[in-house]
């Protein structure tokens, strides 16, 4: 009887009240910061805001200026090169290391600890270490030359055309361990019977990996791809520490463009437009994934 009255009570807002109060931080973060902040930035990217945000609309002017800027074009090209090779190398190396680690080897935890420790370090530390290792006067180039090969040249950080590969080397050192760990977890999830069956059929090991195991690990690959790719688009600290965008503007990246225009050049409109472009790039990766992940679940 009392239950009946509870159901009839007009104010359903008060039901489960504690849970609603406890969820306020989550709701505020999701709605105000994530949705609100994003909408705000996209909105103001159509204004001519300079030092302060102003609501004077200029249509797509900021975007036209952005795509006419040489620095932005270089940033985008760098991100494309960096992203392409970072994905390929971290996936190939990460998977091969994981496959090797999965052979019931000795000292597995020692190897894992070694492969993963750079991931615990910040991009600033990573960038500075590799800045030192690639220093032309003291680092790898100097050492090889002093071994007698005097014509040896390996100077990515001071050569405009290849500086982004210098950043890539550092990024791979830092991030491949993560891919390896995720892949290894995926490999451990494969049923032992699959291996038995492939052995009975006499399929060579490499072929088993390529044709059976990798297709089975599709979910792991997709999640890893999303994590790694969204990290790539955000790359910022590494470049700041290792090259400061130089020499010249040769190693600029979009995230740095945004920061510099918002907080140094006091040209907010450009910063907003550039960050909106970053958002679009991320959306291309995230929306299909979110659709598969969250849309698929409702049906299933």
């Amino acid at each position: 009887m009392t239950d009946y009255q509870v159901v009839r009570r007009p104010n359903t807002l008060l039901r489960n009240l504690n849970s609603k109060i406890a969820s306020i931080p989550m709701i505020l973060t999701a709605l105000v910061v994530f949705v609100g902040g994003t909408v705000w930035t996209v909105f103001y990217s159509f204004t001519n805001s300079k030092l302060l945000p102003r609501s004077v609309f200029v249509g797509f002017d900021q975007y036209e200026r952005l795509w006419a800027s040489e620095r932005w074009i270089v940033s985008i090209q760098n991100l494309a090169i960096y992203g392409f090779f970072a994905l390929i190398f971290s996936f190939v190396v990460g998977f091969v290391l994981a496959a090797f680690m999965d052979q019931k080897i000795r000292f597995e935890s020692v190897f894992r600890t070694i492969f993963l420790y750079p991931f615990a370090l910040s991009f600033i530390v990573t960038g500075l270490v590799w800045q030192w290792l690639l220093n032309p006067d003291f680092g790898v180039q100097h050492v090889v030359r002093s071994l007698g090969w005097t014509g040896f040249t390996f100077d990515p950080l001071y050569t405009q055309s290849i500086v982004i590969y210098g950043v890539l080397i550092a990024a791979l050192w830092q991030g491949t361990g993560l891919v390896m760990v995720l892949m290894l977890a995926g490999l451990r999830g494969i049923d032992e019977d699959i291996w038995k069956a492939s052995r009975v059929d006499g399929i060579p090991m490499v072929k088993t990996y390529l044709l059976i195991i990798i297709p089975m690990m599709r979910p792991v690959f997709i999640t890893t791809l999303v994590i790694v790719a969204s990290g790539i688009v955000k790359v910022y600290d590494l470049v700041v520490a290792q090259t400061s965008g130089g020499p010249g503007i040769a190693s600029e990246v979009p995230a740095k463009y945004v920061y510099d225009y918002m907080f140094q050049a006091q040209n907010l409109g450009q910063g907003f437009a550039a960050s909106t472009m970053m958002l679009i790039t991320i959306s291309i990766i995230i929306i299909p994934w979110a659709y598969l992940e969250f849309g698929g679940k409702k049906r299933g």
Partner: protein
Amino acid sequence: MADQATLNTVAAAADASRGSLSGPRGNRPRPLFSTRNIVLYGTLTLAAIYYLVPLYVMVVTSLKSMPEIRMGNIFSPPVEITFEPWVKAWAQACTGLNCDGLSRGFGNSIRITIPSVIISILIASINGYALANWRFKGMETFFTVLVIGAFIPYQVMIYPIVIVLREIGIYGTLSGLIVVHTIFGMPILTLLFRNYFASLPEELFKAARVDGAGFWNIYFRIMLPMSLPIFVVAMIIQITGIWNDFLFGVVFTRPEYYPMTVQLNNIVNSVQGVKEYNVNMAATILTGLVPLIVYFVSGKLFVRGIAAGAVKG
């Protein structure tokens, strides 16, 4: 490659699992120096050396004097070990503004990390608990927005946050930065706690309900004491993440509150003066030390923290 050898491995593995029924247990003994082992351990060892070299170079460089660095090569061990660079990096190194070394940044990082870790974990764990056990209509939608929002580049949301913090009056202060870390730690931590609390047996929760315990009572007296491992995992994620942060530190604080990473970058990449590579490397190690210690001490839990990021929502 050596197909026969690999087949033997698989055979050995299969034998091992069959062995539990009858016959001898364990792997079939294999020759120690088979082609397979040489390729396997050779590759892994080479990779391990590649991963260790930067750490090694950092340590040796930081123990050399500048003349020795100019003379020698970066891979050679120090002839004369000196701790001068470490002292200088900690107490005297100059950023553009002042010359009191990294100790200031270390202090700031401590004052940022500790409250941020505590507050973010407390809030996220309560959110996760509500999501797992006290669902209300629309809650999952907010959560989905939160998780997808984690992928939005920070650059998109930074400026509106600057404005809000400025309005409240905490822009540029440590409290402002702590709020920012709490906000951006929310998606991953809430996900972590939601999944963990959802995996606990529901009978437990129901029994507590029958006994008359409410929302907070169940959280503090049942869920919290049962979930210490997951709290440790959350702490590992947050300590390393917040300590290593650079972007938020540089955007949301004034120079006197700069965290260690920002100060380190200012020391090493400052254009004035002669470059002291040994001091720079000592400073770099000092900055990396806290996350490295967390990493080496936590071991498998660190891996679990990473895997949490990859767990489906």
